[in-house]
């Protein structure tokens, strides 16, 4: 994660805009108002408040970093939602106000964030703000209803109401997180939202169900419910943490081994890394979803791995200056290597077809060899993106000089007649323009 921040600093086209700030300020204002209200009326049922506050703080300490630099605090969020949805604790009816829910949740989150700050990790205010806003919305809708006689008596009504509120809260969380992503990485909103929902669905279901369980079970078991129903969520969290860890190691390993080509003198230093960053930025610009984006990143990192099978390095390693047949052969060798892993089938396919021209030209007539029904069996989008990004890097290298960049983009545009996908080239042009504008 620190590495991610590092990247952000290094690549100015990814700087954060003001959306995050807006969100944090909104949550902050709400928080101040709630604290003031709670202070004026006093804490209702302090024992319950402290128990839930402690659970939320505990959950915040155990924050989880999911793939794609997504931060979440499943236990904390489940605890806060349960507190907002509480109807009865043992024999007593829960009478705390929505303000109190927001106050307890916020205090719990802040206390839980302190250990992170103490060991030098960032506080991640935006994530906390998103969680707080979700909890606040649920609390302000449900707290007034919780005292309602109909809700207390009719378990079915309470169940459906609470379930829909929990689902709505988790949807709101997905939307807010997607908006933050759009803001941060210039992803498209629809793509970001779908990615967010797909990634968070299982965990979200577990969080929502646990929140409901805690809220209902508190009626029968009292506050023991908090400890009991946190257990499955903790198991999930441990497994997901290890999952995220191995995924990060995976990416680091592919990156490291892609560097083998550089140390072996096959390609210019930094080439694979640059091509992969550029390809991912272009892919995001074109609205590629995250799982495919990861495949694109792997393929881009390993696109030159086939050169390892060559006896001697190609001078300079710049593959666009090599004959097309040799390029195809190297791509094929690389794909064979990746194929052996058996789990990266589509990555191998992307690497195999990275040099195919975008359009086939009939050598006799000079016209396109498009299929009559418009369906072309062309290379996959990711291959086309890598082709463009690779060619761009071969021409520009690590230079950020705007003149050189413009010349390279111009060259790529000229070749869209046959070699490069015009869409990919345009997206690439937008990405590199953003980069050089900020650079100047």
């Amino acid at each position, binding site marked *: 994660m620190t590495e991610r921040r590092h990247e952000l600093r290094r690549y100015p086209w990814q700087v954060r805009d003001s959306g995050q700030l807006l969100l944090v300020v909104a949550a902050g204002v709400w928080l101040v108002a709630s604290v003031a209200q709670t202070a004026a009326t006093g804490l209702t049922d302090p024992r319950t408040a402290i128990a839930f506050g402690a659970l939320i703080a505990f959950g915040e300490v155990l924050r989880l970093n999911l793939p794609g630099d997504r931060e979440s605090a499943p236990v904390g969020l489940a605890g806060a939602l349960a507190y907002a949805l509480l109807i009865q604790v043992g024999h007593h009816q829960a009478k705390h106000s929505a303000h109190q829910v927001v106050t307890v949740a916020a205090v719990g989150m802040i206390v839980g964030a302190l250990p992170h700050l103490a060991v030098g990790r960032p506080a991640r205010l935006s994530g906390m703000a998103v969680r707080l806003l979700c909890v606040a919305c649920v609390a302000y809708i449900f707290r007034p209803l919780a005292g309602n006689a109909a809700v207390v008596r009719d378990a079915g009504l309470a169940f459906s109401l609470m379930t829909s509120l929990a689902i709505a809260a988790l949807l709101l969380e997905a939307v807010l997180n997607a908006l933050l992503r759009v803001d941060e990485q210039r992803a498209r909103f629809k793509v970001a939202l779908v990615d967010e929902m797909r990634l968070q669905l299982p965990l979200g279901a577990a969080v929502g*169900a646990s929140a409901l*369980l805690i809220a209902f079970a508190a009626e029968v078991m*009292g506050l023991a419910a908090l400890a009991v129903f946190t257990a499955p969520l903790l198991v999930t969290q441990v497994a997901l943490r290890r999952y995220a860890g191995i995924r990060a190691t995976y990416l680091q390993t592919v990156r490291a081994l892609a*560097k083998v080509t550089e140390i072996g003198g096959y390609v210019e230093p930094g080439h694979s890394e640059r091509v992969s960053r550029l390809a991912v930025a272009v892919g995001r610009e074109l609205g590629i979803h995250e799982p495919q984006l990861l495949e694109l990143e792997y393929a881009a990192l390993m696109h030159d791995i086939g050169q390892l099978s060559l006896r001697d390095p190609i001078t300079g390693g710049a593959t666009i200056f090599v004959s097309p047949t040799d390029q195809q052969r190297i791509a094929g060798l690389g794909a064979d290597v990746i194929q052996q892993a058996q789990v990266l089938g589509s990555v191998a396919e992307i690497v195999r077809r990275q040099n195919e021209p975008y359009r086939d030209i009939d050598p006799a007539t000079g016209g396109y060899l498009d299929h009559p029904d418009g369906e072309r069996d062309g290379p996959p989008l990711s291959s086309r993106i890598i082709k463009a990004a690779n060619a761009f890097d071969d021409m520009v290298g690590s230079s950020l000089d705007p003149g050189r960049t413009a010349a390279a983009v111009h060259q790529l545009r000229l070749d869209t007649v046959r070699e490069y996908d015009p869409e990919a080239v345009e997206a690439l042009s937008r990405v590199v323009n953003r980069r050089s504008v900020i650079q100047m």
Partner: protein
Amino acid sequence: MARLSWAARLYIAAVVAAAAAVIAWGPFTFPSNSWRDIAILGLLLVVSESTATRLSPGDLSWSPNTTATLAAAVLVGPVGAALVGACTAFSLRRGPSPAQRAFNTGMMAVTAYIAGRVFVAMHGHVGVLNVNSFPGIIGPFAVAALAHVLVNYALVGGVLWLARNVEGTTRTSQAGMTRVLFSDLGYGAFGLLIAALWTVVGPFAPLLVLIPLFVARWAVAQFAEQQRAYEATVGALCQAVETKDFYTRGHSDRVSRGSVMIAREIGMRGDRVEALRYAGMLHDVGKLGVPTMVLQKTGKLTEEEYAAIQLHPMRGLDIVREIGFLDEALAGIMHHHERIDGRGYPMGLAGDEIPEFARVLAVADAFDSMTSTRSYRGARPTDEAIAELRKWAGTQFDPAFVDAFVAAIKREGWQRPEPPVLAADELATVPAQDHDDPSAPLRVIDSL
């Protein structure tokens, strides 16, 4: 369990008959709406039974069905629990044979019935819980859960023992059984929670309780899958690195296996063994930084060329440094050519100064080199290579690890590489020396 012995068949028949008997005798003295509860809990059992996972291929499979039967024991009593247990018959799982299915059904019914009886005998109150049930119910329930798990364990143990000679039933490890025992107790605890929630949300209780459980299992499966993918990818990439040098194909893989054998023999901790395995796979990655010309040179090496070879562990470290490994794996990669007497490279460390991983890797590395075919000699027999290892123990290798490796090979054997078959276009890439081979040290032109 394709062909069962008569004893096993008889045993299964007895279990099924016992199940039928307890259900038939009743007494069916529960309130009328219990039939709805039994149906819902039965459905829950079928769902969890149908999603059972195998502990490992060919091993016992387990599922969280204890949750359903124990909830039934509390909510609808022993006979109701037996009925719920009998719903195992409707499992959608395709794996089990008819005999297995019959046994599972009978076993679950009997187990659930006994657990229910124990619960009642411990003065547990059968029926929907209320606020006053806690904490009094916890004691009887815990005893019932324990009885459930033990009866289950005993019945399954019995059938495994009777069917032990039948082909296809692998012996389940003690550790595996213990794990099932504990996870069953854990899942059983959720049975009480379902029973408790039944008061508030009725039949929605199982749904709510099971969502987090299934997500937890999903997360564990995701982790396992990612781990497998990672291993496969590292293996494939290491092979890519090796394609350059024809004779050393598979070397990294074998060194990795050999190192793990040594590590297990000396009782190394699990996560360190894992790290060592990756270190073995990646130990020669730095060879890519050595010009092919030098690696394949036939004559004596110049000082500069020898220096280039001596640098390969450092190059390897440069490549893998950014991987979030244990530091130990990195140290192992960097120092795998150090010698106990201090005459190795790149640092010339001696004795205990050399990291443990590096000392392990050195033994496996040299052994694989000696037992593989090289252009300048054939593969040596295993015995001869062991003798060679012993000869260098104390000067080049750590004697303790040599002993451990020899012991492991004696027990588990060693899979030697196939002799390489040269393709026509590969003749040119034949190295004439091997830097890993202790019996034929690199020949360096003497500068004096």
